[in-house]
């Protein structure tokens, strides 16, 4: 297990380095000059040049890259010219809000999708199964900004059940996380249903029944144990997906998370913050994958670390 973890951690560092490099290049290739944005359109050529020198923008790209990598290694992503202070600390301030949103969305998806899928597997081809099937397609087709607006109109404006923005108290997290989760509930249910149906046909299910095990335990113990692996895998990917999708949903609900911070930073060419945010999301994604890998090894007795 130790060597397996070490190797995976090494791969993770490699991927993180690639991500930092990619972001560095992309951010600088995108048209728009931060010096002009900071000083406004009326700034003189001298003023622009001095600001560029301050930020090191006058040096050749490779030199900027090397300096930058050195700083990144020390955890320094530079300062935000708009917010003042370190870009990374601004990012990390906002990160817990996004994490809360994504985690709740994941819990909702699992709590609704898993039992729904099991119910469908129990009676395949029946009404519920068909509804979930159709629902998963519709859910996938809905853009999240539209779904968010519809939910606000319905539950905040019409029914006044829930607040639509972050200022409305702790229950404000419900609408945005439901917006994130809803399109994936049917999707997960389908996955669980198909996995369970495949397992139900296997001999060990008949053995369990022959022992006099009840249908509930057959499904939620024997079958669930064997579809846990694919479910955990997609949940890990889904969590990463939710953190990334939060960008749009956070803007719709004025949620003070990483996503809305990033959108602001991009509009204002706040390179340092954009980079810190993207790197944070990337590292998060990598960490989630690592957790999924470890969980899979822990869940599957046959997947020994030697051949993983």
């Amino acid at each position: 297990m130790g060597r397996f973890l070490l190797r995976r951690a090494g791969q993770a560092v490699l991927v993180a380095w690639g991500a930092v490099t990619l972001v560095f290049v992309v951010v600088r290739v995108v048209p728009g000059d931060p010096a002009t944005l900071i000083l406004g359109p009326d700034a003189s050529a001298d003023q622009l040049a001095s600001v560029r020198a301050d930020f090191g923008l006058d040096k050749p790209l490779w030199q900027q890259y090397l300096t930058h990598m050195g700083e990144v290694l020390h955890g320094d992503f530079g300062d935000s010219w708009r917010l003042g202070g370190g870009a990374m600390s601004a990012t990390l301030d906002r990160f817990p809000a996004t994490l809360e949103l994504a985690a709740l969305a994941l819990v909702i998806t699992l709590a609704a999708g898993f039992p729904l899928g099991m119910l469908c597997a129990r009676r395949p081809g029946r009404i519920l199964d068909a509804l979930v099937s159709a629902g998963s397609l519709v859910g996938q087709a809905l853009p999240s900004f539209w779904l968010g607006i519809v939910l606000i109109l319905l539950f905040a404006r019409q029914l006044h059940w829930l607040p639509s923005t972050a200022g409305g108290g702790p229950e404000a997290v419900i609408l945005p996380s439901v917006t994130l989760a809803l399109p994936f509930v049917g999707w997960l249910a389908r996955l669980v249903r198909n996995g369970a149906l495949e397992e139900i046909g296997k001999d060990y299910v008949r053995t369990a029944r022959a022992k006099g095990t009840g249908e509930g335990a057959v499904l939620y113990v024997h079958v669930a144990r064997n579809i846990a692996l694919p479910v955990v895998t997609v949940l890990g990917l889904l969590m990463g997906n939710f953190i990334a999708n939060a960008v749009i949903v956070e803007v719709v609900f004025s949620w003070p998370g990483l996503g809305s911070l990033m959108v602001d930073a991009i509009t204002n060419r706040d390179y340092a913050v954009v980079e810190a945010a993207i790197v944070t999301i990337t590292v998060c994604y990598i960490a989630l994958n690592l957790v999924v890998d470890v969980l899979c090894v822990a869940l599957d007795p046959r997947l020994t670390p030697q051949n993983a």
Partner: protein
Amino acid sequence: MTMSAVHPAPTPPGEDAAAELRDVHIGFRSGRHVTPVVRGVTLRLLPGRVLALVGESGSGKSLTSLALIGLLPPGAEITSGSVVLGGDDTAGFTARQWREARGSRVAMVFQDPMAALNPGFAVGRQIAEPFRRRLGASRRDARERAVALMREVGIADAETRYGDHPHEFSGGMRQRAVIAMALALGPSVLLADEPTTALDVTVQAQILRLLARRQQEAGLATLLVSHDLGVVARMAHEVAVMYAGRIVEQGPLDAVYTRPAHPYTLGLLRAMPDGKEEGGRLTPIAGLPPDPRRPPGGCAFHPRCPFATDVCRTEDPPLAGSGGRSVACHHADEVRAAHSGPDSAAHGAPQSGPHSAAHSTEEDR
């Protein structure tokens, strides 16, 4: 096609059967159409006795055994007849009654122990499951009983192997674990569906000895489903030969093996190596079993039968006989004569005959 008459129970009544099939018909339903697969099977399983159900794959022998534990696959259903467990007709059983009967009244050992065990749980936990779930035993108590049971079926180091997963067990050990599971709640009826087919030849004998020993100690009424006449010879007291969903011959092991009266039984015996004649040729049965959707008219075996005459093509012979010996063939006498004829000397009863092996109980551990 003429319907066969309901035949009399082959074993004399009087002794109470632990489980019974009475003229059971099983079919696969698709829409309103039902394809008959088992066509009127009557069997009695007596305490302490082993009845072997012999036939090719597709003859309906596995479905017959699954009907006895209420686990017919989706689509298959009992269309008529009754399954009786310890005197109770199961036709009126609720799902809950079936659940309570499984494991404690009737248990089953399956063909492929790797597939029969859940790959995700430790073997010991799976053996302990009936104690936990059915008897409400504590975790510790269930574990102790499971370990004791594992020892009984010959799993060495039961205490340490309790936590091992199925993939860490050898084939023979897996089947021992499956047998332990079946015996956990002390059933009175044991169904063994090809219990040694998926195993190494070297392990087969051990598993058979274990099954025979447990069967005799516990006085289990056993149904042994097998296509292997050698396996049957080692365990069974009585044999029922199944062809195309019907029992075509039934009787004491000895009698059926030495004096077959149905051409299909004769064919099975001739297709089996007996170890006596080195370099000799085995005689396979020509042709294939019929498609249950298009059964031949008359006797289902007639297209493959060397004895077939016109009456075989039009009339399905009823299963008839006396003294616990019955056969469904228009030409049973000719078959008997053919078997005892001069050219059949090499095709007698198999070497591992009933006299020696059926009563051997020594265990090899």
